[in-house]
């Protein structure tokens, strides 16, 4: 018995140990030359020059569009996605009957902007043309998943013949995680996919899978592994901001080290002007009960994400803020209805159910949850909404069940929401 207590103690102490250490990542907070961005700019100059000499040359236009799309990941400038989109449309005007490639590029841009219905139209056109079907089917899966069409997604997945390929494994992982809620299986598949490409000297693919794996480990509360993934990515590309953001989240949500988390985010905000960082800073301010800072960041986030070029990219967070922080029940219902109309995923329905609840329509909220969310969506945010809905409906047992499950993902949800869960659980 003594040993059990002892080992419990060790486990508990181990859990409280901070994961992040500024010594590991401080070198990535020093502005350094971004050689990859320079390379992109050099190539952009080259093709711009060609295009200036021969206006309307679709090869140059196609190249420039591809370069803008790649540039966006470093610059965060949404106008570059918009430029790429306009160029691809011009190219497609000329080659839409002979090549499906531009349809896929247009679809990829739509996915970035969360314009999934339009992405679906482009993919359907690419499928109808029929060339490079393998590449189109991969994207057919991606779009179907985003639109909540799990049958079409499964069909596309099944049609991939090489079940050990990177392309298959990463999609199978997504399916396991999103549709079946099997995070452990998803992680094994992602690990297999990562093993496949780790020796291929493809840094962008490596950074992509490794940082995604970092996110997956985080969702499974495997913090050390998650941290290691992000550090590996930064060692490969010091300007891979998603990995730095992941470390900031570890510092904030796990280590409760707001000072260092804020330091990372301040650096990111300087280098990579996307709205995400204001959202993170607002949560840090909330934890520190700094209501002025909190309000400033929320206002900045809402203003930035109101730009129509972002499409529906930030709807999830805008909904959350309107429903929970700004107490704008009508506004949140509007976003949820729009989202469900655009992409009827179980997660979108969880917003709708919560919006009904916030508007006082508790029974409608419960019916919506039962029809579209329960057993179909495993996102901790959705489980939180389910718990709150059942609490409002007076079913404390069910409320406790969903909130306790959501609480297991406290790290993923962050201190603000997990604080709300803990408070609610106390009152049940």
């Amino acid at each position, binding site marked *: 018995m003594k040993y059990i207590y002892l080992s419990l103690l060790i486990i508990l102490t181990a859990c409280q140990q901070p994961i992040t250490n500024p010594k590991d990542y401080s070198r990535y907070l020093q502005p350094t030359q971004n050689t990859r961005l320079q390379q992109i700019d050099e190539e952009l100059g080259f093709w711009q020059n060609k295009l200036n000499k021969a206006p309307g040359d679709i090869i140059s236009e196609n190249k420039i569009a591809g370069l803008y799309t790649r540039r966006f990941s470093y610059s965060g400038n949404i106008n570059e996605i918009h430029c790429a989109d306009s160029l691809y449309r011009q190219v497609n005007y000329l080659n839409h*009957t*002979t*090549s*499906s490639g531009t349809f896929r590029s247009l679809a990829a841009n739509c996915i970035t902007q969360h314009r999934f219905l339009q992405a679906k139209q482009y993919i359907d056109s690419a499928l109808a*043309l*029929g*060339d*490079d*079907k*393998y590449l189109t089917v991969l994207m057919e899966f991606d779009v179907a998943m985003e639109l909540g069409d799990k049958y079409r997604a499964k069909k596309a997945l099944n049609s991939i013949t*090489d079940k*050990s*390929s990177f392309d298959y494994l990463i999609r199978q992982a997504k399916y396991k995680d999103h549709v079946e809620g099997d995070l452990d299986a998803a992680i094994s598949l992602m690990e*297999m996919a990562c093993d*496949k490409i780790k020796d291929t000297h493809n840094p962008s693919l490596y950074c992509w899978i490794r940082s995604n794996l970092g996110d997956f480990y985080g969702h499974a509360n495997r913090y050390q592994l998650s941290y290691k993934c992000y550090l590996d990515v930064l060692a490969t590309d010091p300007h891979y901001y998603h990995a730095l953001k992941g470390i900031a989240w570890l510092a904030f949500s796990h280590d409760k080290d707001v000072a260092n988390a804020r330091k990372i985010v301040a650096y990111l905000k300087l280098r990579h002007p996307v709205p995400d960082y204001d959202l993170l800073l607002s949560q840090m301010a909330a934890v520190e009960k700094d209501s002025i800072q909190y309000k400033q960041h929320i206002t900045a986030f809402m203003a930035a994400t109101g730009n129509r070029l972002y499409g529906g990219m930030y709807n999830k967070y805008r909904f959350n803020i309107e429903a929970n922080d700004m107490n704008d029940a009508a506004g949140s219902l509007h976003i949820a209805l729009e989202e469900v109309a655009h992409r009827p995923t179980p997660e979108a329905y969880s917003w709708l159910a919560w919006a009904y609840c916030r508007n006082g329509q508790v029974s409608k909220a419960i019916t919506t949850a039962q029809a579209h969310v329960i057993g179909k969506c495993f996102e901790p945010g959705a489980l939180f909404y389910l718990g709150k809905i059942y609490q409002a409906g007076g079913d404390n047992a069910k409320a406790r069940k969903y909130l306790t499950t959501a609480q297991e993902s406290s790290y993923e949800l962050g201190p603000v929401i997990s604080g709300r869960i803990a408070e609610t659980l106390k009152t049940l």
Partner: protein
Amino acid sequence: MKLYSLLFIVSGMIVFSACDKDDDDDDRKPNYYGTQDQMARPAINTVFVSAADKDMFNTTVPSAMNAAFGSKFKARLMALNAGYTTNLLGLTADQFSNVLVTDVLNASTTAPTTFYDGTNVLTGRALADDVIDVELTLIFGGPNGTANPGLTSDKVNSNDKAFLASFPYLATPH
């Protein structure tokens, strides 16, 4: 000049893409390869194969191309030039489609290397050969190569940068 009276050594460029089926680091396991794309004569695959057939054509071995795509090539030829009778090589629509559909790049070990130099036909392909003009002439130019003058040249007569005299011969990217 009868095309098939020449003895050709047929060579095709087939692009293989590695398709690594190894699950672990076991070096003894073989790699498997699959054809993903192939191209021999410039623009033929691009122009004569529809988007819907593209994947199939790219994975069909040249010896099976005639049987699989011969009639489609002829239909496309006649769609491009409804007035086609014969061309500069004296080939009928059937004969010309048969030549085109087997998409390989021929190389003669004895004749000068050229796509077409007025005497030698498809004895190879030199860098400076104006292959698109040759193809357009054979498709649209009629028996004397003079019909449809507006359609028999792309008006690009040379590379926009001089080729190198030694390996790798191609001009540097610019």
